């Protein structure tokens, strides 16, 4: 437990969903940014919010923060309406914007102090020092004006300001943009710790391997509509595994294939299949054949979601996940 953080503070928050969006709608003039977006994020969950540029991710986040007012629908955080109880909501969250607007003439330390004082309460210096240490920002760095910071250093400072009050909900917009791979790992480790402490994380991202690595569930928004909400595991399992079989001698294709088996390409020496169910039936069929090599590939989230990003017809199995 972090010094100065009272666990009782979070006890009352557990009963309500961390984030509840009900039929959220937002128009900017004639442009519709969000259409009937409904979503629940449970307490303690790490939720990835995906979508292309202009899909509505940032608008959703800004509605949660009451920086943008919805045209219709309702957003709530821990059961508190984001518009009617904005101050209470924002007291419970830490926010990392996509473009943190730091002033170049301020030092990192002055920026963190100012933002901590606006958050209210007394900042926990030991916790801040831990964050700085893990993200490899030294005190000497903090004393420099921000105009001398690199993009990555500014991003690290942004992460520290979002985490420094150890809020129950972290809303992170493209958190690893500009971070080098080592710092990305340090950030993932911070997220893992936040999850262990029961914090909820709502993060938007373009980086699908990152989402695959850290998120429990993902939501995919396209053209302002939520087109997919699922666990990473479910998406993978329904997308099917790719099985590539090489034979030592030419083999004739069977008259019928086992259930859940989709043929991608078949030649006398190589079969390329996608298996949506368990592999048992396929392995039983192959047992009597002269197999030279067998390769099984787990589907990458990136491949699957690209079909959703584009406007192509969706894979039928994935469509069932739509909520």
């Amino acid at each position: 437990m972090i010094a100065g953080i009272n666990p009782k503070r979070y006890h009352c928050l557990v009963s309500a969903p961390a984030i509840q969006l009900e039929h959220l709608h937002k128009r900017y003039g004639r442009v519709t940014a969000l259409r009937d977006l409904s979503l629940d994020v449970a307490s303690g969950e790490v939720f990835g919010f995906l979508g292309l540029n202009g899909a509505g991710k940032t608008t959703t986040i800004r509605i949660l923060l009451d920086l943008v007012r919805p045209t219709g629908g309702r957003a709530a955080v821990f059961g508190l309406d984001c518009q009617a109880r904005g101050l209470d909501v924002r007291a419970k969250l830490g926010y990392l914007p996509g473009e943190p607007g730091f002033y170049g003439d301020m030092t990192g330390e002055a920026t963190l102090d100012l933002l901590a004082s606006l958050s209210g309460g007394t900042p926990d210096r030991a916790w801040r020092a831990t964050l700085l240490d893990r993200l490899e920002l030294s005190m000497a760095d903090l004393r420099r004006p921000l105009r001398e910071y690199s993009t990555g250093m500014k991003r690290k400072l942004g992460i520290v300001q979002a985490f420094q009050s150890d809020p129950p909900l972290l809303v992170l917009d493209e958190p690893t943009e500009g971070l080098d791979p080592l710092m990305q790992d340090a950030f993932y480790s911070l997220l893992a710790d936040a999850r262990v402490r029961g914090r909820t994380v709502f993060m938007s991202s373009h980086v699908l391997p990152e989402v695959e690595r850290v998120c429990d569930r993902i939501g995919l928004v396209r053209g302002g509509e939520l087109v997919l909400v699922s666990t990473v595991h479910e998406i993978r399992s329904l997308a099917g595994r790719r099985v590539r079989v090489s034979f030592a001698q030419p083999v004739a294709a069977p008259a019928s294939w086992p259930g859940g088996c989709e043929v991608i390409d078949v030649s006398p020496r190589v079969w390329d299949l996608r298996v949506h169910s368990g592999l048992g039936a396929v392995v039983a069929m192959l047992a009597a054949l002269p197999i030279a090599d067998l390769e099984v590939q787990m589907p990458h989230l990136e491949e699957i979601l690209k079909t959703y990003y584009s406007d192509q017809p969706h894979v039928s199995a994935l469509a069932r996940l739509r909520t």
Partner: protein
Amino acid sequence: MIRSLILARHSFRRTRPVVIGMAIVLAGFQFLLTQVAVFLMRNQAFGLLSSLVPDFVRSMAGPSMVAFMSFSGVVALGYFHPIVLASLLGLAITIGTEPAAEIETHFGDLTLARPMARHDVITRTVILLVATIASLLVVMTAATWTGLLCCTPTTADRPAFALIRSLATSLGAVALCWGGVAVAVASGARRRASAAGATAVTALAAYLVDYLGRIWDPARFASRLSPFHYFEPMTLISGDAVNGSNLAMLIGIGTAAVAIAYARFSRRDL
């Protein structure tokens, strides 16, 4: 309110170099004017100066021209000279448009993502505006008074402190009026440059409308629409007391503009 003060302290730290620089320049200018007045007095040049003014200008300015061509008039020039007026209004507009700057730079995303009400941003701007303009006027007044007390012959027809105070109050009122207008414009803008530009162009237009009304009778009615119509330093130099209704009009315009700013900023998308 506490968060407004925290933000105000932060904003003051950032604007401090400009404000201090401006205070030094304006104070220097006020001090210099006292010495110019001493120079003119010693050379008995007020009469000569007055004779250089064309007749039509003298008739347009009326008795205030006589008052202006005096020791007090030259000292008082620092409180209505167009450069001083433009400098103070420029600073007021710059401070007043800070809400738009914070939206433009996304700094507002960081501050307003915290448990801080939107009206705190406007309150902070008003606090900073009033404090900065008041500080500058105090420094200017102090510089004038220092010049008069330490480097002016006792025989000089020194202006009364009440006159300097009245001139500073009028100048402060007109600066706060335009500062309020700047806050109102900025509360609905996404770019500081466009908010400041729009306010500055409006102020210039209002100044010209007022000027036109003063020199051309048919335009006199239109000049009432300009806030500068209610800024009359020459009547103060002529010996009139501060016109309370003029001050009330200027402060009223500024206050109304700030009220609009509160309403606009609390409803807009950021």
